[in-house]
């Protein structure tokens, strides 16, 4: 499975946006503006969606035309035949592609099962937009056929229809649950401080201090004390 690396999962979603205009603004631009206004770090709605490592939203407006000079690095038929005729030469030039829809792209790296993750998105996604609380529907509102999404099951099946398979998913980190990762980061930071502060202490003092330390940081309690998802300052 291309979307999995152990328990780490890659979710790639391309949701077509309805071609249309309301109040002089296209649905694609409305959607982009909504994405741009999402608060960052700990206030991002994604901080509330369980097990999100890193995720992003953007609008794919079009594909790019490769007008750059040069040729493919790997053998391409028309470049050989182009020696023989001018029409073949023209064929070898890059073509111009145009997308007929704009796409909302959602790319997430998370821990665990897709259905559970999407349930979390449906249930937990919320953020404050100029004083109004918005859920996940606010972002997908103008996507094709999204009006048919009425409940969590509908959302899951909608997203799966928009999902693309990763050809290669590279995990340069861990595939632990986010709680596990955040607790580990908290412990790393706290233990580094402890070790530095207790350098050179006597055996008995150290043993006592370590015991207090463990009681405070509770290494096996994943929920607390720990870092919060999206926490950007100490």
């Amino acid at each position: 499975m291309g979307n999995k690396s152990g328990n780490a999962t890659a979710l790639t979603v391309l949701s077509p946006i309805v071609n249309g205009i309301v109040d002089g603004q296209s649905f694609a631009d409305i959607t982009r503006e909504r994405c741009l206004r999402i608060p960052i770090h700990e206030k991002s709605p994604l901080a509330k969606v369980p097990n999100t490592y890193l995720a992003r939203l953007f609008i794919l407006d079009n594909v790019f035309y490769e007008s750059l000079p040069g040729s493919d690095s790997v053998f391409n038929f028309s470049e050989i035949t182009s020696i023989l005729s001018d029409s073949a030469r023209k064929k070898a030039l890059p073509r111009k592609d145009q997308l007929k829809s704009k796409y909302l792209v959602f790319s997430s790296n998370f821990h665990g099962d897709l259905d559970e993750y999407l349930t979390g998105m449906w249930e937990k996604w919320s953020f404050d937009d100029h004083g109004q609380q918005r859920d996940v529907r606010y972002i997908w509102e103008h996507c094709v056929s999204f009006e048919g999404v009425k409940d969590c099951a509908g959302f899951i099946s909608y997203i799966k229809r928009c999902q693309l398979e990763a050809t290669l998913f590279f995990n340069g980190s861990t595939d632990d649950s986010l709680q596990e990762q955040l607790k580990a980061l908290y412990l790393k930071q706290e233990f580094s401080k402890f070790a530095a502060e207790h350098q050179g202490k006597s055996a008995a003092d150290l043993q006592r201090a370590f015991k207090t330390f463990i009681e405070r940081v509770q290494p096996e309690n994943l929920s607390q004390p720990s870092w919060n998802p999206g926490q950007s300052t100490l």
Partner: protein
Amino acid sequence: MTQNLDLTDIQGNIVKAYGSFGFFKARYLFLRIDDGDKGRGFVNRITTKVTSAERWEKDAAPSVTTNIAFTYSGLQALELPTASLIGFPSDFVMGMSKRKDILGDDGPSDPKNWDKIWQETVHIWISINGKSMKDIEERYQWVTQQIEASGCGVILLKGHRGEDEAGNPRDDLPYQDASVLYDEKGIPTAKEHFGYTDGISDPVFEGQTNNAARVLGRGKLTREGGWEPLATGEFILGHIDEAMEYPQTAPRPDLLSRNATYMVYRKLHENVGTFNKYLDEQAEIFPGGKENKELLAAKFSGRWRDNGAPLVNTPDNESKAEWDKKFAAADFSTQKRMLTDFSYNDDIDGAKCPSSAHMRRINPRGSLEYGVKDAFDTPGALVNRRRILRRGLPYGKVNDATSDKGNHGIIFMALNADIKRQFEFVQQQWINYANDFKEGNDKDVLLGNHDEKNPGKVVLKVERNSGKPPHFVCNIPRLVETRGGDYFFIPSITALKMIAGGIIDPT
């Protein structure tokens, strides 16, 4: 060597570290151009005395040198065409003070605390390096005559902090003097005010030397463990660089940028009192205690203070004593080699020379491959594009080694083809941050911008599986403060003449 440099066209300070040619004194002047035409006339006259990189036959070296460089606004004032000006990179256009967030120039290093001269608009930098103060003084008088002759077209800016001849503190000096430090016997040394030996292994690039021995430990590390000179284009525009292309930081036309480079000028005050106190305190809790104070000082920099012995080959007092014996008995070229020819391949953990040591931070050699053989295209893949030529000298005197007060430090000058990719990268990613060294945000002990709110900390590693704990060095104070500086463009002599003649045409 495959590359022949146009030594008569390249300014001498790019290829030569004047200090190692017996020029122990320097004076730096900063000027403003108030009139383009008169400014060009001034540049024309200075150019007649600009020192090139031409090789000096034995005993034929001059007694004084002169070099010149410009800020971006200086080139604007000299009325370079817009089509040329837009070719300069944004870091150079912005200048050093506006890059403070990238460089970590905060708190006492913030531009608002710099010498008064940096509140002015600086256009021109002129350096005079001399074998004696008399030589400097004579050339300085000549330069001031040219300033006068410019008829107010060019102004010498005042506002350097320092001491006047009577030893009184001043903040309005018209120049910045610098000098090597002398030992008790009056012999010139390569030391700076913290007592470290400085500037030992400057990079070597193609065309700079025919002496293969000089490349050892100073060029780029090869897969086989040997050394090759770095590509010329890492340090001089208009030549191929390590990316197999001409540097992208070159403005048009070609004759404006060929054989030129960029210079970072930084006045770095050294908090000698704080350093001495901190080192003494830390030595008390360092394994081995006060006996190992010099070892601890070496752990901060990567070299022993007394003779610059590289810590990676002399990790303890015994090996150091042995090294010293060999060093004393060795001839000059062997000594050079002992100082520069080493790598960290047998010390990936940093148990000998810590990865937080200043020398390892600014040039990790092949160690960022972490001993994973052939992981990268070449062992120096992450290093070869981050090298800088270091020029410069100490300034000021330490009258009271227990105090930070007074004016003493280093005039640091870094030369590179791309300030952002080379100098700024090293300053930001390797001195003030350490992800590449897997040390989080732990900074370079000596140069890091530590402060009371964020006191520095580094971990001095020990031998793996030795059962011994690493040593934590904590509460590191700010040891070095920036007192001023800017980014300069050092043109070739051809370009100087064209700038002076007003004939730069990028069409």
